[in-house]
């Protein structure tokens, strides 16, 4: 599998804009010297055509990446991305931006590592600085058996050519001196799994960068256009109904994350997803304080510091399905409890803002990318907590699947019907969450 | 009867702590020497069970949820649609009595005497301490004397009963009792508290 990753020109600088609007320190200088010379639009804002070869529903990270790779890798440029609001208005624009490839199940490891490799070259590929920061992620273990579980993960990573290091308590203390190592700590720190190549990415830039590069390759990005239905005839989808009229397409793919069930239902599909709200939190901007992505092991909680200076926190879903992009205060409290218990010095930092995003939760915590019971109709969703890091590979694989009407081996196991076969992909062994909210 | 060491034995030996103004406006401790029996009907036998149990306890009817019923030294809490908790002094062989009147076909009688630790908190700031622990309205009008609620303190289930104007009794799970105690005394810190009754 890995060799395959090498062969693929993952970061081939496809879709490099015409020199005139290529970004560089020189273009900045040019514009600085002649302030009246306007910058070109980052992406075109065309009227929708009456038909396309491929329509991608959803202008989030995955939809835009899919459009880009359709054009860049498969030469399919007569493509429209249809977004009901502004691009990046969904989870790509509201997530805690962590990227990593510490996955241990067969179906996951290669996919997420492929994604991390694509991240590594992304700013170059797109000629848009997405601030891909490989600052490293430390996943803490609070008991010997948790350390064993981390070890299994780390070993799989190493066996697949992915960087991973096991830290003992002392090494964690050196790396993250500000954690609570006192006897006061409710859950002592035993060690951790470190992936140095993991890190964060400037989330909005991912949407804009893919949009710009795709647009430069001829993809139409159509904002403020809501898909309200699909044109379905005897088991085949041939277009979409939108708030701006009917648009036909050879092939249609949906990548609408939290709205997956809702949109799939328009095509008569019932899928294994429930939509839950996940909250995120940011503190006031401060000078550099936390230099890694830190993940708590006692409860689902993680934080990192954005380049702008805010500490960005994330936790668990609120725990009931909803389509409102706002959370409940008790979850804000439990996240603050985790933050202060893990890193006592954040006590005096102030929460600036908190918000929510609609998460497409699946019973086993793994996503779907592939064909559907309907012909020429493809589905991408069910990303749970992990879709941001997946963005490049997801778009890459979804584009492949749509172009060849066949799953790539990277997304072979992300099938919509895997539960019928009994092929759950429970990466974290948390079991079917629908029993255990 | 063997003496029964308390789940709070260690802390009950302490004296308490003075609050920010040097006084001890609260009294905390554990109520000892009582038993707890749970009696529950099956959906279809609810009415029948209420009849025989109220007869056995010598009350006209069993209380509705939220209100306690008194039968001599015994106190009755409805803890579910057709489930009751009855407390009584240790001497009272309540469990046996109820087992006699409630056949297995009618319901389940379960002794829970050791399952719960009964913590009391008393004094003017008690309500504020509860406000810092439980998401319920303890305004005297909203939570009258004799009322009780099944709720949680610090993530653990409790039954809280307003026993008097400024006295609340908290039935906490035995295995979590010390945690609940630590939580309450920590909340009580600014007001000061005297620990009563040593184990």
């Amino acid at each position, binding site marked *: 599998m890995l060799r395959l990753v090498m062969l693929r020109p993952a970061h081939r600088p496809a879709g490099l804009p015409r020199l005139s609007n290529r970004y560089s320190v020189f273009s900045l200088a040019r514009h600085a010297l002649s302030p009246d010379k306007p910058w070109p639009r980052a992406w075109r804002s065309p009227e929708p055509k009456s038909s396309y070869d491929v329509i991608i529903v959803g202008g989030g990270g995955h939809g835009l990446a899919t459009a880009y790779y359709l054009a860049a890798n498969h030469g399919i440029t007569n493509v429209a991305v249809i977004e009901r609001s502004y691009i990046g208005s969904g989870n790509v624009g509201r997530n805690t931006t962590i990227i990593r490839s510490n996955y241990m199940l067969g179906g996951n490891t290669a996919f997420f590592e492929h994604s991390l490799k694509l991240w590594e070259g992304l700013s170059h590929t797109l000629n848009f600085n997405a601030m891909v920061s490989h600052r490293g992620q430390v996943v803490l273990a609070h008991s010997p058996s948790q350390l064993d579980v981390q070890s299994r993960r780390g070993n799989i990573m190493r066996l697949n050519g992915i960087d991973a290091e096991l830290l003992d308590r002392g090494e964690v203390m050196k790396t993250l001196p500000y954690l609570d190592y006192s006897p006061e700590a409710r859950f002592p720190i035993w060690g951790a799994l470190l992936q140095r190549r993991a890190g964060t990415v400037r989330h909005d830039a991912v949407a804009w960068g893919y949009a710009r590069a795709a647009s430069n390759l001829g993809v139409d990005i159509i904002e403020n256009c809501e898909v309200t239905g699909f044109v379905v005839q005897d088991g085949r989808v041939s277009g979409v109904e939108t708030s701006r009229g009917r648009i036909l397409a050879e092939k249609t793919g949906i990548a609408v994350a939290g709205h997956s069930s809702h949109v799939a239902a328009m095509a008569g599909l019932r899928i294994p*997803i429930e939509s839950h709200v996940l909250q995120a939190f940011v503190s006031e901007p401060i000078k550099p304080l936390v230099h890694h992505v830190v993940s708590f092991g006692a409860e689902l909680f993680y934080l990192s510091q954005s380049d702008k200076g805010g500490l960005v926190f994330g936790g668990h879903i609120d725990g009931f399905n909803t389509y409102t992009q706002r959370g409940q205060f008790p979850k804000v409290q439990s996240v603050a409890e985790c933050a202060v218990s893990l890193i006592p010095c954040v006590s005096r930092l102030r929460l600036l803002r908190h918000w929510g995003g609609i998460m497409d939760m699946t*019973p086993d915590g793994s996503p779907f990318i592939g064909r559907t019971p309907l012909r020429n109709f493809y589905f991408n969703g069910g990303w749970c907590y992990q879709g941001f890091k997946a963005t490049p590979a997801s778009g890459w694989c979804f584009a492949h699947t749509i172009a060849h009407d066949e799953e790539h081996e990277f997304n072979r196991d992300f099938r919509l019907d895997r539960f019928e076969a009994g092929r759950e992909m429970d990466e974290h062994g948390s079991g079917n969450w629908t029993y255990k909210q | 009867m063997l003496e029964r060491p308390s789940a709070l034995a260690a802390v009950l030996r302490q004296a308490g702590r003075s609050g920010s103004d040097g006084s001890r406006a609260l009294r905390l401790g554990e109520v000892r020497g009582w038993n707890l029996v749970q009696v529950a009907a099956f959906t279809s036998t609810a009415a029948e069970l209420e009849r025989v149990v109220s007869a056995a306890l010598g009350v006209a009817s069993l209380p509705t949820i939220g209100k306690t019923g008194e039968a001599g030294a015994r106190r009755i809490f409805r803890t579910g649609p057709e489930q009751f908790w009855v407390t009584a002094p240790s001497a009272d062989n309540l469990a046996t009595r109820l087992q006699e009147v409630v056949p297995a076909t009618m319901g389940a009688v379960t002794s829970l005497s050791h399952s719960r630790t009964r913590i009391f908190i008393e004094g003017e700031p008690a309500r504020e301490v509860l406000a810092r622990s439980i998401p319920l309205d303890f305004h005297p009008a909203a939570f009258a004397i004799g009322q009780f609620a099944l709720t949680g303190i610090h993530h653990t289930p409790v039954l809280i009963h307003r026993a008097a104007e400024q006295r609340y009794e908290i039935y906490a799970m035995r295995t979590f009792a010390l945690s609940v105690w630590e939580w309450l005394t920590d909340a009580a810190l600014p007001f000061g508290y005297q620990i009563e009754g040593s184990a």
Partner: protein
Amino acid sequence: MLKITCPCCGERDYTEFRYGSDASKPRPPLASDDRKAWHDYVFLFDNPKGPHREFWQHVLGCRQWLVLERNTATNIVGASRPAREIAGK
């Protein structure tokens, strides 16, 4: 704060409850070996944007399972009933 009215205990914070997902799915009879039916029951969701009928259990309370009507587009909660009243229906 989502507030849920427990048919037994009255109105409480949702934090006293445990969510149990969609309550409108027909559960196949125990004896059924119909894998398709069981698969649909266990793994598929309507997950509607709007009125939703769902299970909750009052774990920090009377431990009753109940069925709540809630609008997932607004989080506005409606009526709740003891789960057993709709059992099998």
